[in-house]
């Protein structure tokens, strides 16, 4: 019972925090400079991690699927299968989960330490609107960068899959590309990539919320980072189920 009450309370508080975000979003000043800096940081901090993840996913998927497909005599559809699973599901979700770990924890730790060292209070008393400056910019940066990083992950995963295929058969790359793309619909690609904006929103809102209200010291900052990763990842998974359901309704199977 206590656990349920606590969970509901947290969800309510995060929703209220998200409400503040939307309330502040269109108010001046627009922190353009800081937004660009945050997008740059978000991208440069996590690009390598996303690329490595994508590459490994592509290689492993390709290796493991080949045997299974061969058993049904369907080895030829490997590119189709790879493209479908990477672009529609694995790329977006794995990228977002990796980023929930990397960025969610980073945001919570950074804001948390700014809170306990009174930097957020200092912004507040200098009338520098810390919520706008710290939270709005980070959330927007994630909303923009998650899809871009997802695209990077998808591309590298397909390259990895192709490279792995080359080792076992000399598949022409044009054939591979043709096949891979023939199975994808534009609406699938757009929707699957765009939904990571929602994941980016959830991960960063949770990260900011966890850090923004930390009280105490370094121990509490660490706990906030951990909580941001756990709640952020869970929300990504739950939101994914809901959005896949939605996409089935909108675009059919």
């Amino acid at each position: 019972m206590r656990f349920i009450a606590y969970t509901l309370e947290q969800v309510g508080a995060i929703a209220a925090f998200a409400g503040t975000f939307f309330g502040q979003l269109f108010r001046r000043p627009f922190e353009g400079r800081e937004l660009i800096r945050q997008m740059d940081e978000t991208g440069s901090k996590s690009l390598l991690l996303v690329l490595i993840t994508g590459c490994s996913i592509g290689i492993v998927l390709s290796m493991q699927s080949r045997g299974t497909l061969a058993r049904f005599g369907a080895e030829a559809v490997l590119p189709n299968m790879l493209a479908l699973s990477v672009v529609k599901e694995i790329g977006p979700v794995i990228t977002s989960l990796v980023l929930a770990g990397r960025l969610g924890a980073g945001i919570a730790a950074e804001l948390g330490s700014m809170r306990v060292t009174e930097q957020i209070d200092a912004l507040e008393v200098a009338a520098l609107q810390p919520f706008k400056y710290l939270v709005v910019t980070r959330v927007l940066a994630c909303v923009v960068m998650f899809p871009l990083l997802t695209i990077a992950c998808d591309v590298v995963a397909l390259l990895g899959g192709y490279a792995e295929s080359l080792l076992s058969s000399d598949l022409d790359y044009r054939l591979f590309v043709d096949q891979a793309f023939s199975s994808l619909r534009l609406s699938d690609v757009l929707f699957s990539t765009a939904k990571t904006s929602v994941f980016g929103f959830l991960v960063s809102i949770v990260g900011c919320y966890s850090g923004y209200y930390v009280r105490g010291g370094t121990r509490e900052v660490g706990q906030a980072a951990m909580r941001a990763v756990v709640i952020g990842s869970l929300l990504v998974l739950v939101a994914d189920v809901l959005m896949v359901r939605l996409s089935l309704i909108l675009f059919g199977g």
Partner: protein
Amino acid sequence: MSAPEAEIVVKELHKAFGDRKILRGVSVHAERGSTVAVMGGSGTGKSVLLKHLVGLIEPDAGEIWVQGKRVDQLNRSDLNELRLRVGYLFQGGALFDSMTVDENLDFVLRRHSKLSRRERIEQIHEAIAWVNLPHAAEQYPAELSGGQKKRIALARAIILRPDILLCDEPTTGLDPASVRTVSDLIMRLRAERGITTIAITHDLLCADIIADHGIFLSRGRALAEGTLNELRSSDHPELQAFFG
């Protein structure tokens, strides 16, 4: 309920966090151009009291007046306007650690003044020269010592030429030489600019240099109040323990 004349007036302030009563009817009075030292053991709510003065914490009961305005009833934009008249020196300095020293100062200036870039740079140089750290401009807060951080934080707090300065333990944790330096700077502000100061301090050397009036907090109330000499000669055991 007319606005009081004095620069800062706190009347019967009450504040609890959950069921922990921190402040139980504290009153403070600071005339323009005076310096009041708030003393007392750690955890008695001195920082909580100071944060009320700039609306960082909202009171449960009581009145807070700054420059004739009721802080606890101001709307957001009026509160922000008032905050620009107040400099706040946080206990650890609270410098923005992702920015260099001059960026820390420029961030405040850029937002709240119409100065050109050149004029801002000039003012920043003047400010860090005033705290006697003219070569710190390019450094990050992490590269500064505790005393240097406090001095830069003081420079940042007064860069907009406020009428009021609030200091939360400006000298705690500093070596004796830095205690003197920081205390002297705070005292000079009053002498040169007529700033009204409220300073929380444990430090008798600092209090002696800067303050003409002291309040001693204990268990959420003002236990004693008066000039430092009056407080020092009090026969209350808690004050005697404090003043040793």
